[in-house]
């Protein structure tokens, strides 16, 4: 680390987590987790509470020791290094600003640790606050800032030391919805501007899909699928991913010779080797539509609209089929023809679907 204050971004470095293991007593928090972040890439770790996201991030930061595996930052094995030698910037969920220092002093703190002189560190702190849009708030204490502003200062503080990697652990969870999406975009803008390799931990799938270059979906201590947001959403690799990312209809059906028959419709399978027998087909609401031919003769896909949720350009229609309710998502113009109470017939798009066996528990969002 030099004591310079120039603002040219330096290219990010590659980060590798290799076969990380971590146990707490009987709990396996990380089970052979491997993940490589390309230089300058933003990867979101997404998963339900308790799946090990924070543990992964803390192992990378050096705040926790691994039972097994390696952490490699920019080609250097840092597995044995303590946090204060690793050059990582961290943003916590909340309340992480030092309350007795004003905003610029918080941002300058890491520079002080690096023996940057007082004038230089104040100058650089103000530059960093400017980067996150808070130049006018340099002399405020944390209690005089809103939650979103505090997180911006925390981001500026983490980046001020020009770390090799930026780690964010649910940085938006404590904020209300409106601030959350604005700050999410702001974090992404700053990350791209600085070009730093970033790991962003969240349990909110919308957030992960919106911010990341790639999303790693975690379950029980390992990564189930790693890929670009669109791929994770449209081509979930496992039933867990399908159910955790986005909304999914669980429709009972029967597997027979490589297809699954669901309420009279045969759908191709993603898992080609699935054994014959009863199964649950996981069907996205986008793959369900309302037939426009007016044929309402009794059938397995005929039912009554019980709710229409307006989402903007699209709407989500809830249809009661008697034994089950199904979500269908469609352009708002198409949904307008079927207000609540209308009798409709649904059709299923014949995209390949994933199947789950009975015992796969529904995932809480």
């Amino acid at each position, binding site marked *: 680390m030099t004591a310079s204050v120039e603002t040219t971004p330096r290219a990010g470095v590659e980060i590798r987590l290799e076969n990380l293991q971590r146990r707490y007593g009987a709990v396996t928090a990380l089970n052979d987790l491997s993940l490589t972040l390309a230089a300058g890439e933003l990867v979101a770790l997404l998963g339900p509470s308790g799946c090990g996201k924070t543990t992964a991030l803390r192992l990378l930061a050096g705040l926790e020791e691994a039972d097994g595996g390696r952490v490699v930052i920019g080609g250097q094995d840092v597995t044995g290094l303590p946090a204060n030698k690793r050059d990582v910037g961290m943003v916590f969920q909340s309340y992480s600003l030092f309350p007795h220092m004003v905003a610029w002093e918080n941002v300058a703190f890491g520079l002080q640790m690096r023996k940057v002189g007082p004038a230089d560190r104040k100058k650089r702190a103000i530059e960093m606050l400017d980067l996150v849009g808070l130049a006018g708030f340099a002399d405020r204490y944390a*209690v005089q800032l809103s939650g979103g502003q505090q997180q911006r200062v925390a981001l500026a503080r*983490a980046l001020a030391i020009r770390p090799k990697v930026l780690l964010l652990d649910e940085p938006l969870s404590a904020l209300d919805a409106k601030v959350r999406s604005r700050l999410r975009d702001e974090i992404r803008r700053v990350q791209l501007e600085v070009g730093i390799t970033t790991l962003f931990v969240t349990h909110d799938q919308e957030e992960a899909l919106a911010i990341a270059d790639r999303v790693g979906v975690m379950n029980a201590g390992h990564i189930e699928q790693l890929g670009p947001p669109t791929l994770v959403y449209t081509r979930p690799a496992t039933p867990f991913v399908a159910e955790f990312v986005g909304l999914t209809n669980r429709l009972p059906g029967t597997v027979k010779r490589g297809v699954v028959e669901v309420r009279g419709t045969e759908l191709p399978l993603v898992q080609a080797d699935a054994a014959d027998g009863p199964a649950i087909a996981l069907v996205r609401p986008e793959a369900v539509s309302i037939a426009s031919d007016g044929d309402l003769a009794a059938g397995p896909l005929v039912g009554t609209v019980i709710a229409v949720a307006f989402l903007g350009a699209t709407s989500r229609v809830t249809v009661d089929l008697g034994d089950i309710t199904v979500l269908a998502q469609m352009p708002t113009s198409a949904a307008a023809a079927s207000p609540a109470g209308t009798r409709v017939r649904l059709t299923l798009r014949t995209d390949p679907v994933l199947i789950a066996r009975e015992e796969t528990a529904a995932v809480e969002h």
Partner: protein
Amino acid sequence: MMGGRRLSLDWIGAVPFLGYVALFLFLPTAIIVAGAFASEGGPTLVNFANLSRPYIVSAVINSVILSAVTAVGGAVLGAILTYAIATGNPRGTFRRMVTSACGVLAQFGGVILAFAFIAAIGPASAVYVYFSQHHLDYYASGVWLYDLRGLELVYLYFQIPLMVLIFLPAVDGIKPQWREATESLGGGTWTYWRYVAGPLLAPAFLGSTLLLFANSLSAYATAAALINQGGPILPLQISNAITSEVGLHEPGFAKAQAVVLIVIVAIVSVLYAVLQRRTARWLQ
């Protein structure tokens, strides 16, 4: 509301408190101060002039030293105990046991506390007998339990628990993120205490020490029970001045001594308020 201003009735809630303060704080203080300046022949300063008597001067000095020693000792030892509690399991038995014990012991004083020490380590106690038989006669140079050294030890018995009670909320307010943020920014344990935890806890620590000082300064019953000859500290002198033959001839003298106590407590309160104001900027 129909036009006009609404009368704020918020102050009504404070009336019982203000009444209480007026009746039991301001009124007695006024009586004492007025009495200190009064004599049969009209206003006088003679009671204050009498404060220069050597035994009063030494009582004031002893009182301040006793309070300072037990405040600093209680604050340091209490802070160590508080740190041990705060870093342990927040719902653990150790924490619950220590905090409830402190709640009781901080109020423990007077004759019972004095007697507890006399029974436990006094010259007739089994402990003393055992030690003196094994060549550890801790009263070899006098029974210090019955003078100022003894008071210092006995006072610590309620000062330490009081420190735990008033300092624990501040220590609990320290967030683990601050430590971790310090580390990820390149700092170690020393920098954390020097720049983060130290400055954050210092005002609460000093403020608690001042409260301990005032607590010890005004303690009377424990000293009265332990010390039955002379009056090495001011509260005992005041008691003497109220009850003794001599004292009855100069009723304003006890009040003048009480004014000294009031002035010391007032100075401590001002220091305390200054500390509070410094921290108020970053607390709420």
